[in-house]
Each structure stands twice: as structure tokens, then as C-alpha cells.
């Protein structure tokens, strides 16, 4: 038996009013192994803590039980107390006789009985506590940011600002992301490019940040402080060192394909930058469409390039680097409208998605910023804006609200009125949602100042009728049927997780929700962390968000990264799983239930008589293990155990609690 000391706290009258402390102390003294028991009015006070330290010394205590408030309150406090007296901090156990006893029971006799049982249970567990030691893990002082939209840009800048080196990986030939596609931003109507491009340039000029554009994450291994990541840079066919970004090649290239950046509203060349303010402002050859790569002739770009930068022989480049932390900022995709044939998208050229409409608004867009009907090049008069297309639709879209559509639709209505005199916006909505600073006021202006007509009714179908479009709906407020002839329909399509988000989540060992948005570690209190330590989230890859929220989360993620990288080393949580190799049969049931990939196979070489035999056993990576204990239950031979919550400890608790 371990020499155990029991310290019972009054917590003023919080405990003492319901639990007979004297009786409890007397009972504790008779418990197995207990050599000392006493009481204190406030054990967490300096006097109370000193009493524990003093008793450890004078009574040579080996284990300490504090019967007081919840371990969630003061477990750490008392661990430090016993450590100060030279004991391993994990020799402490807490009996929760306040939250789970004195505060929830009224009858003093039964409450005292229960308090004694809880103390007995803690004593029984403490007797089986073992010394645990947190180990120190080194940290690689370099961060990886995946995704070069506004979230990734902000995170990279803020991490660099804290003095750490950042690699920024972007799938497209330029950073900028979705924000670069926008015209104006709500609720201030300042131009998106005007506030974004300076940040893009800042990234390019930062000595701490390296941009890997036209690149994607291929493989992720390791754990917090020590990730090993392989990045594939796609062959650009342009020598970045030689290219001056003059753009001659893009003018002469004979191949025209739909511009992804302009959503197919205009064409780009096979050698291209997505948009004029691209960073890096150096083109890439899209090999799927380039005539040289598809037909074996052309080489016009090579001929016109004054710098000799065209290099058709380039190959994809794989680069492996170590990182201490990762920020995931991969953004969103606008919802595809395959399920919404009723809106005639793709059937009539004047039915547009909101991002397409955004490009029409943009001065560098396909119409030079004029709102013109794609069908006839004339400005529209009546425009129907349909909200919640694919949002709040559990039957054939996303059940969630896409959060930004109410605001950008109000913006579109306002800009339509500003740009096309006499034009009239009709906004069809289910509910208008505008929580946010100055948001409601912005929406108010749309109908009050600009005369947008808001109709509470989901449009059921758009009927193309020659040049016109007939929109059929109901105004649920007046109960009137709506049949509206318009010149243009703009669909506020929902926010989807980025295609490929699921695969990236698997590479990173992070989780997604049912709609492939990455999961935060806690919806309220840990909104930028993931369940995998060292991996953080920023922006819409975690769920629909507007720009201010995205930037705020990106900065928050950057702070988390800086806090992590600023440490000398990491202390590991010592309550992790441990394999008894003698008992392990190597059937690896544990591996299947481990959510962290912390268990791997290991080959043992053993002498059996004269032979050397090789035998498979499980091995726990202490840095990855989070201590959930799922493996311990899955293990048939009982070879794997969880330190701090061992089978023996819990069994001892069960026995003691049932006495």
C-alpha cells in the first residue's frame, strides 16, 4: 500500500454545510493506505496548499487525495502543489465532493456517505497511480499555409510579421482566390481589388514568405511541431527566373479557352495569367489546351518571348519540407446548379450565377464593368435576384444557410441601380439575414434608397420566353401570386466546400462535417484549431463566411501558429496509450479505432530458444496519441493500456465505489 494523505476541503460552507467533514476525515483515516487525513477551510488557498506540502514531507506521503471541487477546477493547481513537495504531479487524485456531491444533494447523511465513497474511490485509484513524465518535443520553426486566397494571404502575412518563415501553396497560377473575382465588397462598397492587391504584393515582397503557385499538397506526415509535407509544383512551362511578365506570349498565343477566372464569360489563352494583377505576374501554360502539347506544333510563345523563358520540357517538381504548423485556407466553390433545372441556368444566356454577375460588374471583367445581357449586349431593365439557390434546401441542395448571399444580393441590387439608370431589382428571398456591423443598414438602403423590391417567396420556376424570362413565385406576405417578366435572372447559388476538400482532410488527418467543411476542434472555444494539434483553419474551408470573418479567423490562426512556433519545445501529454509488447499479439485491432493514426506496426526480434523470431506488435507514437483510450477497449489480449486511466485504476475505482 502506498502511504496516502487525504485532504478534505470545506470550501467554506459549500461542502461543509452538506457533508459532515469530521465524519469524512475519520472514515478516510481507516481507508487502506491512508496514513494521514485532515481538513481545511479552503484547500486551494496558500495555507491549504502549504498544509499538503508540509504533510507530504512530515508523513512521507507517496500519494495525495484532495477531496474538494471538480478536478476541472483545481487539478492543475494541486498537481503543482505536490510537485513542489517533490512528488510526481500525477500522484495526485481529486475526489469531486462539491459539484458532484454537496451541491446536488440536500440530505447531509446520504451526502456524507457519498462523499466518503468518492474519497475511497480516489484513494483506491491513487494507490495505482504511476509517475508520468511529459516529454519534450522539438519544433520546426516554419509554417505552411495551404491556399492563397484572402484567408491564406492574411495568415501568411501575420505569421511572417511574427518573425517566422512561411510557405504559401496555391493551386492556381496566381494567389488572390475568390476575393480577386469580386467587384465591390459589402457593406462599404469599397473595391475588392483595391484592398486585396496591396496585400498580394506584400506577400510577394515579404522576405519571410515564399509563394508556391500552381502547386498542391501531395503528402503530409508527422505531428505538431514536426510535419513533413510534400508539395507538388505543376510544370508551368515557363522559367520563373527568366520570365519578366511582359505578357507578349499571352497576346500571340493562338488558342482560346474559357477563362476560369471569368467563369467562361470570356476567353483566355493557353498561356495565361488568371487576371491582370496576378501574383506572381508570370504566366503558365495550360498543357491540356496548348497546341504544342496537344498537336505537336505551334511554339509561338517560345518565338515571341524576349527573355527565352518558355520551357516546354519542364516537369512537375516535388519538394519535401518540414513545418511546425499548418494553416488550411482552401476556400469554397460556388454551388453547381445541376439540380436546379427549374431556373433555366444554361438554357437561357441571361440567367447568371451571382459570381458571373459579379464579373459583369467588374471593370476588368468581360464587359468592362457594364451590366449587359449576354443574349443581346443590351442593359437589362428588370432583374430578378433569386436567393437561397441550393441553400437551406435539404432535399436537393445544402441544408445550411450560405450566410453571404443576403448581403451580396443587396449589394448587387444597389450596384444594378447605380450602374443602369432606370433598372429595377426584384429580390426573391425566404428570410433576409443581415447580422453584422452595418449590415442591416446596408440592406435597408437597398430597398429604401435604391428602390429594390423585396418579395418573400422562393421562385419556383423561370420560364424562358423569347428574349424575356418569366419568373413565377408568390409573395407570401400579401398572398399574391407573382408573375414577373424580367430581362435577367441572377441566382445566389450556395457555398459548397471546395472540391477535393475531403481528400485534403484525409491527407492532413483532420475531419470534415457532412458537407466536407473542415471541422474545428470546438465550435465555440476552439474555432481555429482542428482536432489534430498544429493544424489550424482559416476562412470558408471551415464553413461559409464573409470577408471580415475570414480575415479575423486567419489572423487568429496566425496567432495560434506564432504561439506554437515561439515555444522552445512542446510538452507532450503523458496520459497516452502504452503497449505491453509481451502481451501484444499484433492483430492491430487498436489501429483501426485510433482516430489520430498514432498506432503503427513494429517488428520485434526475439530469441526463442535458439531461434530468432520476428513478431509484429503495435507501437504508439506519443506525440500523436491524444489519450482517448479507444484502443484499450479494442485490444483483445489487453495489451494496450492508457496511462492515467489504466484498466487497473478504473477497476479499482469500480470496486471502491461499489463497497
Amino acid at each position, binding site marked *: 500500500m502506498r502511504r496516502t494523505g487525504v485532504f478534505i476541503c470545506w470550501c467554506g460552507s459549500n461542502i461543509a454545510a452538506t457533508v459532515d467533514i469530521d465524519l469524512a476525515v475519520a472514515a478516510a483515516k481507516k481507508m487502506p493506505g491512508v496514513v494521514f487525513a485532515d481538513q481545511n477551510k479552503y484547500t486551494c488557498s496558500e495555507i491549504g496548499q502549504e498544509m499538503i506540502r508540509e504533510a507530504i514531507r512530515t508523513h512521507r506521503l507517496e500519494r495525495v487525495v484532495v477531496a474538494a471541487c471538480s478536478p476541472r477546477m483545481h487539478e492543475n493547481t494541486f498537481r503543482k502543489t505536490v510537485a513542489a513537495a517533490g512528488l510526481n504531479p500525477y500522484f495526485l487524485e481529486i475526489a469531486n465532493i462539491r459539484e458532484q456531491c454537496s451541491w446536488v444533494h440536500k440530505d447531509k447523511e446520504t451526502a456524507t456517505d457519498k462523499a466518503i465513497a468518492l474519497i475511497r474511490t480516489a484513494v483506491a485509484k491513487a494507490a495505482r497511480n504511476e509517475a508520468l513524465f511529459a516529454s519534450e518535443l522539438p519544433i520546426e520553426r516554419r509554417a505552411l499555409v495551404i491556399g492563397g486566397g484572402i484567408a491564406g494571404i492574411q495568415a501568411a502575412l501575420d505569421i511572417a510579421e511574427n518573425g517566422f518563415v512561411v510557405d504559401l501553396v496555391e493551386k492556381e497560377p496566381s494567389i488572390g482566390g475568390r476575393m480577386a473575382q469580386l467587384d465591390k465588397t459589402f457593406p462599404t462598397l469599397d473595391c475588392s481589388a483595391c484592398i486585396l492587391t496591396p496585400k498580394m504584393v506584400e506577400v510577394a515582397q515579404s522576405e519571410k514568405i515564399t509563394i508556391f503557385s500552381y502547386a498542391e499538397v501531395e503528402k503530409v506526415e508527422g505531428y505538431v511541431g514536426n510535419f513533413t509535407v510534400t508539395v507538388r509544383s505543376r510544370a508551368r512551362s515557363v522559367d520563373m527566373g527568366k520570365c519578366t511578365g511582359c505578357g507578349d506570349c499571352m497576346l500571340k498565343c493562338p488558342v482560346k479557352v474559357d477563362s476560369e477566372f471569368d467563369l467562361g464569360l470570356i476567353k483566355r489563352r493557353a498561356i495565361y495569367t488568371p487576371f491582370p494583377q496576378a501574383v506572381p505576374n508570370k504566366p503558365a501554360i495550360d498543357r491540356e489546351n496548348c497546341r504544342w502539347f496537344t498537336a505537336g506544333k505551334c511554339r509561338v510563345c517560345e518565338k515571341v518571348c524576349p527573355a527565352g523563358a518558355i520551357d516546354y520540357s519542364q516537369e512537375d517538381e516535388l519538394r519535401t519540407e518540414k513545418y511546425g504548423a499548418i494553416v488550411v485556407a482552401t476556400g469554397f466553390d460556388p454551388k453547381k446548379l445541376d439540380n436546379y*433545372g427549374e431556373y*433555366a441556368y444554361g*438554357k437561357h444566356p441571361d440567367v447568371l450565377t451571382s459570381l458571373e454577375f459579379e464579373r459583369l460588374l467588374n471593370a476588368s471583367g468581360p464587359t468592362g464593368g457594364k451590366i449587359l445581357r449576354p443574349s443581346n449586349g443590351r442593359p437589362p431593365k428588370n432583374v430578378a435576384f433569386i436567393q437561397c439557390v441550393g441553400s437551406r434546401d435539404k432535399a*436537393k441542395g445544402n441544408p445550411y444557410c450560405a450566410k453571404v448571399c443576403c448581403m451580396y444580393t443587396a449589394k448587387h441590387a444597389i450596384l444594378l441601380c447605380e450602374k443602369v439608370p432606370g433598372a429595377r431589382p426584384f429580390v426573391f428571398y425566404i428570410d433576409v439575414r443581415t447580422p453584422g456591423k452595418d449590415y442591416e443598414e446596408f440592406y435597408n438602403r437597398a430597398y429604401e434608397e435604391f428602390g429594390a423590391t423585396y418579395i418573400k417567396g422562393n421562385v419556383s*420556376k423561370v*420560364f*424562358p*420566353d*423569347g428574349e424575356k424570362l418569366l419568373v413565377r413565385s408568390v409573395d407570401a406576405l400579401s398572398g399574391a401570386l407573382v408573375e414577373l417578366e424580367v430581362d435577367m435572372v441572377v441566382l445566389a447559388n450556395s457555398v459548397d466546400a471546395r472540391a477535393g476538400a475531403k481528400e485534403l482532410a484525409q491527407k492532413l488527418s483532420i475531419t470534415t462535417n457532412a458537407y466536407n467543411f473542415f471541422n474545428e476542434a470546438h465550435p465555440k472555444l476552439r474555432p481555429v484549431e482542428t482536432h489534430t494539434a498544429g493544424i489550424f483553419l482559416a476562412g470558408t474551408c471551415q464553413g461559409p463566411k464573409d470577408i471580415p470573418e475570414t480575415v479575423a479567423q486567419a489572423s487568429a490562426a496566425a496567432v495560434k501558429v506564432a504561439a506554437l512556433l515561439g515555444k522552445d519545445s512542446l510538452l507532450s501529454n503523458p496520459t497516452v496509450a502504452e503497449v505491453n509488447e509481451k502481451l501484444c499479439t499484433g492483430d492491430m485491432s487498436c489501429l483501426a479505432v485510433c482516430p489520430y493514426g498514432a498506432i503503427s506496426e513494429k517488428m520485434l526480434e526475439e530469441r526463442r530458444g535458439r531461434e530468432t523470431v520476428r513478431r509484429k506488435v503495435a507501437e504508439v507514437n506519443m506525440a500523436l496519441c491524444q489519450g482517448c483510450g479507444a484502443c484499450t477497449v479494442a485490444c483483445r489480449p489487453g495489451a494496450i493500456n492508457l496511462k492515467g486511466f489504466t484498466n487497473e485504476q478504473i477497476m479499482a475505482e469500480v470496486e471502491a465505489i461499489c463497497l
Partner: protein
Amino acid sequence: MRYSYYPGCTLKTKANNFEKTALRTAGALGLEMVEVPEWQCCGALYPLNTDELFPLLAPVRALAQAKEAGHGTLVTLCAGCYNVFKRTNREMSRNGEVRRKVNGYLQEEYTGEVNVLHYLEVLKKEVGFASLAEKAQKKLTGRKVAPYYGCLLLKPRDEMDFDDVENPTIFEDFLRALGAEPVDYPYKTECCGSYLSMADEEVAATAVGRILLSARKSGAELLVVACPLCRYNLEEYGRELTERTGGEASLPVLYFTELLAEALAVGSETYGEEK
């Protein structure tokens, strides 16, 4: 290929040219349609209430007979029957409680094993429109045809799983295979008024008027359908509308099989219904 074939009431009477042309074309395409013995009326409508199983008995019995015949597939022509059979079959394969209760009434034991296909699906999936195009010697070149889907082939969306509910294309692909020119118009899936024409003719007439107007605007010279009730409504109210307006409002309405028979040159001389 051999199929179990369920004609339904209307095809033996008012819509017998639908059946005649279908069977003739099937023969020409090497498809053998074996009529389900002793079939009863499918009930015309799939029950929308959950507290009665009686309406499912007749369709389940026909399905069970198709299963016994060993053909694996039951083919229907009438969109109404198709709707009832497809949904009944789905319920029998998915809903254990319904299955247990229905089988309790019947001699047969049926658990949704038979595949229910509409003849259009047979043409698409089993014959193939490319091969149909080869076999269609007498091309309907230049004929501008408005396909009218109606509701029963397509809806409910999840249960029927026939084609894109809002923007179906199977009729268009079929028409192109025959060399005809399908016209696109937004009313091809709008309801014709269905059984309302039996009780509240004005409502049905209004619905039909919109469909015909839209089809005519798009340049159609005739409509094709797969449902006798749609055909009745479109013809009757089209005629009435022409009379009332004193102008051309109606369009000829044909079963798709009648066009098919023409293109396959197996005799489509009896256009229109036999009365």
C-alpha cells in the same frame, strides 16, 4: 429479349393504337412483349396516404406474376401505370412493414425483385438510341415535335428516378434518333390538369392552353406523349380552344410509339384514337 408487359385498362380501349404501335415496333426491334396473364387495373393513381395498403394489391400481383414468368423486367406504356408500378415496387423493396402486410394478403411472395421499365427506357437502355437511329429507315426529317412529358413519368423526383425532373431529355434523344427535330419549350413538364378534366374542366383547360401556346411559340407542329390522359386533355381542350378563339390553338397529339412505328415503317396508318 423477352419482357413481361403490362398494358393497363386504357390501352385496351381508348388508347389501343398506343398498344398496337408499341407492340408492332417492339416486334420490329426484336423485343418480345409477353402480356401479364390475368392482370387487373393498377388503380391509376399511386396512393398518397399511408394508412391504406389495399390499392397496392393489384400492382403487386402483376409484379409477382412478372417475377414468376421469369422475365425480370416489367414494361409499361401508359405513364400512369408506370408511375404506380415504379413506386409500388420501390415501396415493396424498401419498406419491410408494407411488404409484410401486402404479402399477407396475397398468395404470392413479392419483395421488389422485378425491374420496372417504361417502353422509352427500354428503347434507350436495351435497344440504344444509336442503334434505333440505324433501324429507323423512314426518317422524320424536318418534323418539329414538342415532347410533352407531363408529370407521371418524372415525379416524385426521388421515387421515379426516370430522368432529370426539371430538364428531362429522353424524349428529345428519342426524337432525334428518329430524325425529327425536338423543340424546346418550358412547359414540357408542366401538368395538363390530369383528372381535373373529369370534374373541373375549366382548370384543366387553362393548364392545357398554356402548354399549347408555349409549344406553338417554339415552332412545334405536333406533340408527343406517353400518357392517354395527357393526350385526352391536350386534344379535347386544344380543340375547344381553337373553336373558342376562332383561330389555330391546337396541335395534333400523338403517342411516341406512333411516330416510332412510322419511322420503322411498320404501319402507323391509324393515327388518332379508335373510338
